[in-house]
């Protein structure tokens, strides 16, 4: 199965240049905003690589080839999910190389180094994002998934932004009360644990949906 992930990466060897570009541009753009640039970069790069890999599958019509071979459809789906981890790692590596270069050459761009929590947050973000994307992709195919996923991301983005807004303004809406009641007294570790568990459940649901959609697909 690793060979399938290898395939996704091999196809995109040309885009390595684009990834480097992403890193540079985002670093410059988000300088000094206090935001962890790396998480944004990881999400952007991973999204780009996932979309590109899916675009190539679509262009080649490779579904027909893979499904004529002795591979279970659920494994085809699984490799897509696993590839997200690889892409996140790749973006981390490129970012690290970039920060080292910046520090060595003393170019005046402030880059925050990768922190462990940052890395964890990056993984959680990229996985979450693709948990939304993949079922759409496996159900509707690449072309339609592009449109639908943009809408979905938008909705998600607005949703998360407004939740953050609410948290900051400390509105005493019921949602906030519930949230506070459940987590108010929790320690940092417990919150992290809860987030990871939620993410796992979410990913499992996403995977199950993707497999179901792909199993029923006709070519």
């Amino acid at each position: 199965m690793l060979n399938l992930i290898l395939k996704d990466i091999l196809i995109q060897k040309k885009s390595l240049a684009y990834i480097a570009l992403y890193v540079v541009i985002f670093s410059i753009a988000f300088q000094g905003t206090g935001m962890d640039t790396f998480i944004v970069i990881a999400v952007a790069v991973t999204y780009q690589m996932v979309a590109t890999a899916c675009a190539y599958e679509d262009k080649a019509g490779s579904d027909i080839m893979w499904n004529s071979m002795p591979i279970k459809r659920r494994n085809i789906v699984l490799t897509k999910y696993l590839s997200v981890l690889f892409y996140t790692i790749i973006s981390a590596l490129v970012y690290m190389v970039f920060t080292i270069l910046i520090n060595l050459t003393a170019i005046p761009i402030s880059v925050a180094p990768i922190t462990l929590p940052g890395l964890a947050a990056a993984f959680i973000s990229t996985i979450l994002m693709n948990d939304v994307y993949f079922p759409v992709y496996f159900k509707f195919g690449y072309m339609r998934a592009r449109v639908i996923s943009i809408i979905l991301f938008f909705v998600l983005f607005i949703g998360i932004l407004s939740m953050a807004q609410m948290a900051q303004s400390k509105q005493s809406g019921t949602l906030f009360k519930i949230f506070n009641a459940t987590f108010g007294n929790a320690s940092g570790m417990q919150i992290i644990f809860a987030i990871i568990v939620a993410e796992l459940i979410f990913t499992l649901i996403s995977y199950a949906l993707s497999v179901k959609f792909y199993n029923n697909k006709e070519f």
Partner: protein
Amino acid sequence: MENILEIKNLSKSFKDFTLKNISFSLPKGFITGFIGPNGSGKTTTIKLIMNLLKKDSGEIKVFGLDHIKHEKEIKNRIGFVYDEDHFYEELTISEMKHIIAPVYDKWDELKFKSYIKKFNLPQSKRIKDLSRGMKVKFSLAVALSHNADMLIMDEPTSGLDPLVRSEILDILYDMIQDENKGIFFSTHITSDLDRIADYIIMIDGGDILFCTPKDELLENHTVVKGSLSLLNSIGNLNMIGTRKNRYGFEALSSDKKTTSAFARAGAVIDKPTLEDIMLYYTRKEHPHA
């Protein structure tokens, strides 16, 4: 297990096309040609065998095993060559092989290398820079390099020049020296099958018209051509796909009595090719085509 493929009452409906309850069997050790005009259901049938399309009803057995229950095992033993390659254009032959080889249990690297050499395929050239002939040969090299017991080919030779087609047919002849293997060759270019096929299955409009040994098919049919007055006096009898023009008529006869009747009356009698047979039978089904 004598039959490498068994299809019983297979049906599949689309908006504007239906495969109606088709049945046929492929014995092992032979090359079976699957002929029919474009849109007759050849590709649909193959896709149903490979579970690329979901059948509405019916039974498909490959190597005696149900094609869904034992899907992975079956696909390990099938080599396929489709009319469009579905490779990643950006990758090289070598890279494609690295991706594909681990999928098969019995991948034979030596065999693959020997085919690459035989076909003169440039391993480090990208797929998109290959000619169509080279792409087909690559597909074939892959299909033959994992000890497949059956080769399924869907229009593999369309768009290829006669030399390449001849090379491919030679490879098929080599494969069939092993009487435990079978080849299923779907095409509308029947000249390839005229020599090499052992059995012929014809499909049109989602129906199987016949499934017979090729020699029998060609021996039992004759092309009859004659004057219109001849046709009027003897009558069409049971000739197939009769067409008339200003200069006379042409038709396909499927029984000796009819042929002799016309022969004695001075009509021109010819041996048919598979293309003739396909043409006349198709014309019969679609008289105004």
